């Protein structure tokens, strides 16, 4: 919300370094003889976009959705299924992904936002499982094994060809910048005021004349669409979709990235995604049993570093 204060914050400086790394990655990493990290950065950026979308509803709006990865799946399967049927036109895919995730988010939000607290967490989880099992039962589209995508989204613009790795990378980077801009403006807008206020005291918001439900639902849909677009990018990047991309551990990881980076900060989700995935990568390289270290590490972060990276880097003690 307070951009100026955030810019002086060490966490934001770290975030800007990460962004600089993303911006120069395709040139810097091969020069450092680590070309593998280009694809890693691209993956992280896609997760970052998804985490930004979750932060909108969870960080700013207090809606702890434990099923947010489902929109990754919807965006991804839009590309996968349409391409499977020979529809590779990028604009069609984008339109279907946007409307598809908006529709699902609207229905799921309408149901789950009637509830509070733990019920909300579990219902978003269960509704996402429903779509997950739907994808598992779709034999035509590969069930558990998923679906290979033979050609990436084709937007029909000559110089803009996602088959080119560099174009793919910088498209993701551009969408990441756009997502940051959108989340910053939304949070500071009249709409954002309502969402943030409803997080801290919904009754009071109603008592000043705002019917909160429909605004929360709108935020839920915006977040769903943003994450759906991340799914579309992920499918294109990996040339592959499977039920796993919307399984519940993915939703848990998204939550973790947001918390790790610092909830309700503009850049938090990006640094969260970066640290989470880099640490995963690092540990995974060290041993195949890396979860045995990573799991307890996550527990320790929750127990002792509540403000996430932002909290650790901030000189002031983490707020309650």
């Amino acid at each position, binding site marked *: 919300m307070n951009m100026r204060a955030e810019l002086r914050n060490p966490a934001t400086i770290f975030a800007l370094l990460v962004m600089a790394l993303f911006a120069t990655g395709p040139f810097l990493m091969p020069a450092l003889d680590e070309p593998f990290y280009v694809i890693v950065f691209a993956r992280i950026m896609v997760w970052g976009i998804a985490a930004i979308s979750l932060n909108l509803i969870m960080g700013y709006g207090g809606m702890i959705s434990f099923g947010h990865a489902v929109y990754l799946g919807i965006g991804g399967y839009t590309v996968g299924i349409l391409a499977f049927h020979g529809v590779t036109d990028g604009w069609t895919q984008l339109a279907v992904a946007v409307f598809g995730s908006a529709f699902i988010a609207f229905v799921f939000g309408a149901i789950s936002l009637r509830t509070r607290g733990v019920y909300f967490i579990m219902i978003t989880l269960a509704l996402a499982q429903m779509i997950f099992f739907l994808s598992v039962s779709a034999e035509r589209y590969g069930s558990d094994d998923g679906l290979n995508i033979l050609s990436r989204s084709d937007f029909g613009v000559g110089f803009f060809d996602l088959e080119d790795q560099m174009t793919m990378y910088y498209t993701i980077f551009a969408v990441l910048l756009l997502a940051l801009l959108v989340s910053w403006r939304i949070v500071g807008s009249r709409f954002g*005021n309502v969402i943030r206020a409803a997080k801290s005291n919904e009754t009071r918001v109603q008592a000043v004349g705002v019917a909160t439900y429909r605004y929360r639902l709108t935020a839920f849909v915006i977040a769903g669409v943003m994450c759906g677009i991340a799914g579309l990018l992920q499918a294109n990047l990996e040339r592959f979709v499977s039920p796993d991309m919307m399984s519940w551990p993915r939703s848990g990881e998204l939550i973790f990235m947001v918390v790790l980076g610092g909830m309700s900060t503009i850049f938090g989700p990006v640094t969260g995604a970066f640290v989470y995935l880099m640490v995963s990568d690092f540990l995974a390289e060290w041993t195949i049993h890396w979860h045995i270290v990573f799991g307890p590490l996550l527990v320790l972060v929750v127990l002792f570093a509540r403000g996430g990276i932002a909290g650790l880097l901030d000189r002031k003690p983490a707020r309650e």
Partner: protein
Amino acid sequence: MSDAAATSPALEARSLVKTFGGLTATDNLSLEVAPGEIHAVIGPNGAGKTTLVNILSGLMKPDGGAMLFRGRDITRLSAPARVKAGLARSFQITSIFRDFTVLENVMLPVQAKQGHSYRFWGRTDRDARLTGPAQDLLERVGLGERANVRAGDLAYGEQRQLEIAIALATEPSFLLLDEPMAGMGPEESQGMIAFLKALKGDYTMLLVEHDMDAVFALADRITVLVYGRVIATGAPDAIRNDPDVRAAYLGDDAGDGEAGADTGGEAA
């Protein structure tokens, strides 16, 4: 016709009933508040005062009865719709947005008053249509210099003032005040009484309060609730001398303002 409109009550409750499980919190309660008056509602703890405010403000649905606001039936209106009609409330437990600045606290009702909030792009901190009226209001209630302080960092008395300022920012004609003196020391209470006195005439008020000093200093009329029922309504002097009221409520500390204030302190 105009005569009838002038004398018809600003807010009228007709036979309101609300039960929680086996407990009747509001028992066939009827009440009229005349335009421009401060109407106090008093009663011992558990008399159902806050429940009444919750019902009148639309945050709770009554099990029976009806409510009329300026002659219009509002029984089925949602809380936000009632605010739009001009009926605002404050809370006994301070319900400000603690992580917002003081100014932002007041901007929210101002923006609600200006129509829908489906505006996703414009920055509210640079929107003079919001900051202007919000700052003006803060000046009026004496919080002008505290505009950029985080609301949670205000002194308690100031938080209570902000609580009412938020209600005022909705530009109501009617204020439902749920124990504005709750938790205040004697000095702060005096400040709040002066503050509310200054508002008198501009707003019709229903004042739920424990602090008898405040009630007798402010109220034009008083309604006494016991176990959700109205046992008396009338001018302050009549209430003070009503034997039923003395027996049921004022009995312990009749006329003793200090003791009344203590009760208020305990309730908070």
